[in-house]
């Protein structure tokens, strides 16, 4: 997100889910769409199988869409920048770039060009493991298409250089003028139903609702007037920094609403130490999740089906959530609980309904200003929607890039922070399974989901397993420099030799005990996609 905000001026998906059909070529990188965004995955599958859309799929694992792709690039984990630079090298060499667009709508092209020069397909092959001829072909497919769309997900962002990975993709889109038009763009898929909304609403340490910087005095004054208090001007702590601050005693209290960091966060031993040092841990959730074990207070909240409100999906579409049933027992709306704590601390929050809150938030969030519950009655509206007669915005940057000029960023490839060595010789990647969701608190209570994937597993290449004397279904110990867990082995050629894959859904085998060597320095995203591990037969 930080990468797109810096280069284009907006951190969200530039185009829409429906608009992807307009593309001639789709470059899918670091997104196992079939399993993580299944309904979009079905559409992509349809486009590839029946409508002759050309797909370039870059992923270390031979995911399902790779099998339908025009070109599959099995890159080594963490070498995305080299690949993208290589493609751009070829595009420039062949003159497939959009000179007019570059001149009129971008800046920083010359410095960028110099960096790309040395990324010849041969050099890139040596880094990524992808044959030079395939890099040439990928460049040709993307570079010569009239309309090409880039779709990416956590495979791009969950690296120590996640921000640079995103900026590289922005370079590629800018180079070919694939911005601000149907069937083009650069489209990050948001992993959870309301990640987009939680970001939009200022659930971030540096921004108020609507990405308005807390450090900007004028904007801060606006919020001070709206909320009737003086507000802090220093940027706050990110999730991972909160853990560090708790360990060294600077942080005394943590209020967790609807999250389960004890499964989802990296380097869990460190996090558990942090949580146990807190003077106050409040967990507000629908279930007694693993994080509750460290809590002093647990507050029961209503789930989505028991709430009125709005969610904002990955394509910036604000949609109505409607109350279908009553919450169990004494469970309450999250906003009600927070308002009651606020009132007891001397700040009145007298909201009578979710709609009243929405009416307030749209007065301070410019992107949402024109949206009302009434307008959302039939279907959602895509922000920015500045006025009540504005139809919403399916495609960003039309005619003019939000930032003014699209910014080319010269980016050099750097290896992932943790490299495999003799002791920890495998690279482990983590992600989700189609049948489960995040920390499993919801899907593991569902019969159909558990029927297909009842237990944690480790995907491993059969040849690697053969060398280690491991068979399908064996329980193995997986160790990293930070911890160890036991997992059942699932042999599959879809992971390459030297690589393994697991999911973070399962509290009985918490894969994040192993992860968390390091973080992206800008957006603090953990490097979930590259952890050096050892696999041993116990």
């Amino acid at each position, binding site marked *: 997100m930080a990468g797109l905000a810096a280069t284009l001026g907006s951190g969200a998906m530039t185009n829409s889910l429906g608009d992807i059909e307009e593309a001639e070529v789709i470059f899918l990188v670091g997104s196992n769409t079939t399993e993580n965004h299944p309904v979009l995955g079905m559409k992509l599958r349809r486009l590839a199988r029946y409508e002759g859309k050309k797909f370039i799929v870059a992923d270390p694992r031979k995911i399902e869409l790779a099998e339908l792709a025009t070109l599959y690039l099995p890159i080594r984990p963490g070498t995305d920048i080299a690949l993208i630079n290589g493609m751009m090298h070829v595009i420039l060499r062949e003159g497939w770039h959009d000179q007019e667009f570059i001149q009129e709508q971008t800046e920083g092209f010359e410095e960028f060009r110099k960096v790309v020069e040395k990324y010849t397909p041969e050099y890139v092959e040596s880094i990524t493991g992808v044959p030079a001829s395939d890099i040439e072909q990928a460049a040709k497919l993307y570079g010569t298409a009239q309309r090409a769309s880039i779709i990416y997900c956590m495979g791009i962002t969950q690296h120590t250089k996640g921000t640079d990975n995103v900026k590289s993709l922005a370079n590629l889109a800018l180079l070919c003028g694939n911005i601000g038009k149907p069937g083009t763009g650069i489209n990050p898929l948001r992993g959870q*139903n309301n990640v987009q909304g939680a970001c939009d609403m200022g659930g971030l340490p*540096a921004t108020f609702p609507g990405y308005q910087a807390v450090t900007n005095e004028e904007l801060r004054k606006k919020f001070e007037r709206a909320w009737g208090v003086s507000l802090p001007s220093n940027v706050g702590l990110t999730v991972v920094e909160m853990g560090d601050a708790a360990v060294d005693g*600077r*942080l005394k209290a943590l209020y967790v609403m609807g999250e389960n960091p004890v499964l989802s966060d990296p380097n869990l031993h460190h996090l558990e130490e942090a949580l146990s040092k807190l003077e106050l841990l409040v967990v507000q959730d629908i279930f*007694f999740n693993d994080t509750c074990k460290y809590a002093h*207070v647990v507050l029961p909240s209503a789930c989505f089906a028991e709430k009125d*409100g709005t969610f904002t999906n990955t394509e910036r579409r604000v949609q109505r959530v409607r109350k279908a049933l009553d919450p169990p027992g004494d469970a309450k709306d999250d906003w009600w609980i927070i308002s009651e704590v606020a009132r007891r601390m001397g700040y009145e929050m007298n*909201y009578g309904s979710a709609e009243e809150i*929405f009416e307030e938030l749209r007065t301070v969030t410019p992107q949402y200003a024109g949206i009302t519950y009434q307008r959302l009655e039939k279907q959602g509206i895509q922000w920015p929607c500045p006025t009540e007669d504005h139809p919403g915005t399916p495609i960003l940057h039309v005619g003019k890039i939000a930032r003014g000029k699209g910014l080319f960023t010269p980016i050099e490839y750097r290896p992932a922070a943790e490299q495999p060595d003799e002791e920890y010789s495998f690279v482990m990647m983590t992600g989700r399974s189609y049948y489960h969701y995040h920390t499993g608190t919801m899907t593991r209570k569902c019969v159909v989901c558990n029927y297909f994937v009842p237990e944690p597993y480790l995907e491993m290449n059969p040849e690697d397993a053969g060398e280690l004397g491991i068979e399908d279904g064996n329980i193995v110990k997986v160790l990293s420099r930070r911890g160890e867990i036991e997992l059942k082995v699932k042999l599959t050629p879809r992971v390459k030799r030297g690589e393994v894959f697991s999911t973070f859904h399962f509290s009985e085998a918490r894969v994040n005990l192993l992860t968390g060597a390091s973080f992206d320095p800008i957006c603090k995203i953990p490097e979930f996609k590259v952890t050096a591990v050892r696999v041993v037969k116990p």
Partner: protein
Amino acid sequence: MVVTINGRQFEVEQGQTILDVARANDIYIPTLCYLEKVSPIGSCGLCVVEVEGQSEPVQACSTYVEDGMVIITDSPSLFETRRKVLERILERHPLDCPVCDKAGECRLQDLVYEFGLEGRIADHRVGIPRLQEPPVTYSTPGIKYYPSRCVLCQRCVHVCMEHVGRGVLVVNEEGDKARIEPLYADNCISCGECLAVCPVGALTENVSPLKARPWQKKVVRTVCPYCGVGCVLELNVARNKVVKVTVDDTIPPNHGTLCVKGRFGFEFINSEERLKKPLLRKNGEFQEVSWEEALDFVADKLSSIKSEAGSDAIAGLASAKCTNEDNYVFQKFMRAVIGTNNVDHCARL
């Protein structure tokens, strides 16, 4: 291009079928197998219409309009042809409607009623009174499959192949023995698209133990709680429990499609494990307490930490699973009441 339907003229475009034109102009032609999101199936023969100059009726779903075409959608002989189609279906379809999941929202039930087949059924000339065969194994435990209720419309076969792109289902055998079979069960992703398009009770939802007829249910349109696609779905609720998930084909972004989690992943809502009371740790153990006590404790503790260690000694995690309204109030609370920007959520995880 102009066509005439039942004496009225309509402007039409190349590539439209007779059924497309009729539907666009509110002219009723009964259908059973027709499904907008896939190519015309043409298996039921119910949508027959008369076209001037043609000796036999043609299927409206798969006949493209031509300039000057004169079409009749209703006549005594068409009624008779359609009635025979229904009677043929009833030769193998059990009339176990009282125990069938689909009763009240069954396309076949509607049609049989509409065509007044009561007398023929009462005379035992058509219709099998009861289910002949128990449900058989299907490609997912989310769905119960009753082959004897199947009318071989093939909507499921087509939607799985053309729309989901999986091709799990085939029509096995021919004639009286023909039935739908999940031959390529390994390809199944339990998306339940087949269930959603089944016009009868051959494929029924197998998750909720609680059942309710359509008029006993409340249907509430909301948004799926799982991934970022944000599919719009409908919770079917009876006695404060979710009994089923349905979808409206016309609403973006998913236009009627769901995955296994959206379609079958709703049991957590009514799980016995849901938190029902505030819990406060007393002498190391959690105890159920009143909201008053829990909220007072949280507010007092936060206030004292704030005054002793400062606002920045407190942090909060907002949530990618809560609503915009919840998140707005949460960050406002952290910033305006606690006085810190220490607010983040799991966007990066």
